[in-house]
């Protein structure tokens, strides 16, 4: 519980603080990295879990992403966005890469089968730690049209390409592209992302 509260508090750490941490990490400061890890790991691991599903693989990808953040800390520039966005962008890309290469290398059946026997270890803490954030995102997702929402969710959490989304929703590709963009724009406005 203590861990949970601490993390909640650090989730709300101002972006400028994490940017400062990142600057220190770029100079090789391992203690700063440890603090940054605490701020980032819950969201990154959660997002990766949603996409990859398999717990063991999700843990692997999360560790890779963390090490990559350490490695490439000097390439972060605050003008291009928050540290969380920098890290989440990397995490999403890696998770999607993992899912697609698994898909390419073969039997989806098998992967799906393995996913379903995954350890069900964190349903409860998921609800506690991020309820507010979740509720806001859920509320804003609800303002999208059904097609926008389905497209965005399949692409972001499902790791699908827009081509796959088009096939799954039996919708022309041009329409899917537009819906993804319009959906995100509507989400942006609802969430108040500057």
């Amino acid at each position, binding site marked *: 519980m203590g*861990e949970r509260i601490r993390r909640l508090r650090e989730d709300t750490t101002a972006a400028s603080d994490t940017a400062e941490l990142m600057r220190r990490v770029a100079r090789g400061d*391992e203690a700063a990295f*440890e603090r940054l890890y605490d701020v980032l790991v819950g969201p990154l691991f959660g997002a990766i*879990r949603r996409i990859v599903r398999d717990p063991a693989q999700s843990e692997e990808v*999360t560790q890779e992403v963390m090490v990559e953040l350490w490695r490439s800390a000097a*390439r972060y520039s605050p003008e291009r*966005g928050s540290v969380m966005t920098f890290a989440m962008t990397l995490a999403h890309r890696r998770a999607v890469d993992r899912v*697609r290469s698994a898909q390419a290398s073969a039997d989806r059946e098998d992967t799906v089968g393995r996913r379903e026997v995954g350890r069900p270890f964190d349903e409860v803490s998921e609800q506690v730690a991020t309820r507010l954030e979740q509720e806001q995102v859920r509320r804003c997702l609800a303002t999208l049209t059904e097609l926008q929402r389905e497209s965005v969710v399949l692409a972001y959490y499902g790791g699908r390409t827009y081509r796959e989304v088009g096939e799954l929703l039996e919708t022309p590709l041009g329409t899917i592209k537009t819906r993804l963009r319009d959906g995100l724009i509507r*989400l942006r406005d609802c969430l108040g992302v500057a």
Partner: protein
Amino acid sequence: MNADVHALTGAYVLDAVSDLERVEFERHLGDCDACRQEVAELRETATRLGTAAAVESPPWMKTAVMARISQVRQLPPDAGALASRRRASRWALRVSSAAAAVLLVTTTVLGVQLMRTEQSVEDAQAQTELMASILRAGDAQLVTQGDSSSGRMVMLASRAQDRMVLVTDGLPAAPAGSDYQAWTLGDETRSAGLIKPEDGRATLEVSGIDTAQQVGITVEPAGGSDQPTTQTIMQFPLV
């Protein structure tokens, strides 16, 4: 500004594009301030979808990561230009001539997979034979880039036979008004021909690789160019 490319902003931010489309889009971003602004905002938005999924992580993971970073050297500050090259090399699988023979079976399977649909049996056989005959060369090299969901390209080459074949799978059509063009790169850059995927698949046989050090693929105006006019989207090292 190309409206068609621009419409990809959402898909790009959600990583819902193929690797080739990503490269194209990032090139477009370089010339489009408004797009960069939109991408930044939509990225921040997509990140909220990620943070909303936060869960607790197993504590051992932190110990493991802290132990690993103490052994990882950090990169110097730099522009992001290296990222895509690193990405490509991660996928590059170079096969030494000795290993090529061992991989023959695998490759034959791959070859058959690459050619499975909508092709006459004769075509498929000719292709298989072509690949097999290059593989029989003592110095065959096989390099794969990408994957079948976002566009994969296999280069099979032999210096002894002075030829190579490029086979694609799942390669998206080149953007409207353009073609993929292959080049042999070395002391001089020479066109090796156009690659026109049909339903993602294409085969390009090239005789005369000469002293080329690399094979590169670019996107060129339809019909191809005399010399490359854009950056390569894929490169294959030639030993």
